[in-house]
């Protein structure tokens, strides 16, 4: 038996919405970063669902490339967060106002 593709796409859309809320509402840079990871993976889920729907293995290859890009992004992003917040009292993106106009 095969599960309907629509159900996976609904889960994917809801996961993406949860991640977007996290980025907009939270101020802790680490949790914002994890919310971005949620959104990457929501998109991966819909890519895999569409790959099965259209029997296209290229969708799987694309998800593989996305995973590699996400791993690189996490490495760079986390080192930047560590450098910026190591000597601060607050882990809060609102305190980053050095470029305020």
């Amino acid at each position: 038996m095969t599960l309907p593709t629509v159900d996976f796409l609904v889960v994917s859309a809801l996961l993406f919405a949860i991640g977007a809320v996290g980025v907009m509402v939270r101020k802790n840079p680490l949790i914002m970063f994890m919310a971005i990871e949620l959104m990457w993976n929501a998109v991966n889920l819909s890519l895999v669902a569409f790959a099965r729907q259209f029997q296209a293995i290229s969708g799987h290859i694309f998800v593989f490339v996305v995973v590699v890009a996400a791993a690189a992004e996490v490495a760079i992003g986390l080192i930047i967060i560590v450098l910026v917040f190591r000597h601060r009292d607050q882990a809060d993106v609102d305190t980053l106002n050095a470029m305020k106009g």
Partner: protein
Amino acid sequence: MANLIAILAGVLCLFMGVVVISAKNPMHAVIALVANFVGLGVLFLLLHAEFLAVIEVIVYAGAVMVLFLFVVALLMAGTRAPQESRGKNLPGQVPLALAVTGVFAALVVFALAVRTVLVAPPPSTTDFGSITNFGRALFTTYLLPFELTALVLLAAVIGVVFLARER
């Protein structure tokens, strides 16, 4: 049976996603995100993406989240741990964020409900998404993108070493 597993995994994913964005302690958020990735791995397996399900658990729940764990332990440990300031949001920040993403999610779900062609998936050929087929596609048709991912990782490694060097 597959239906039940899919529902359980989907509910686990969504619940753990909510836990991630509402956790006060970043350490709890990391653990919830690991559970979220395991649930996603189950969904990938149900969609015949065998290799990607393994990658999801090993690379994401394993490597990437251990990196997160190290950084949380480095930044948030000790008595002088930096805290997130509370109750100083922009005017209407939380309601507006919820409203915008609520409208987005409602639009997507509505569009999917209208487009009924996706309800009945084509019967999967028995070996679609098998590791054999995935590997063959990765190392023949998509060899150049595969090699370029190695370049992306190399650039990331050089960037991290450059940023983390002693000054």
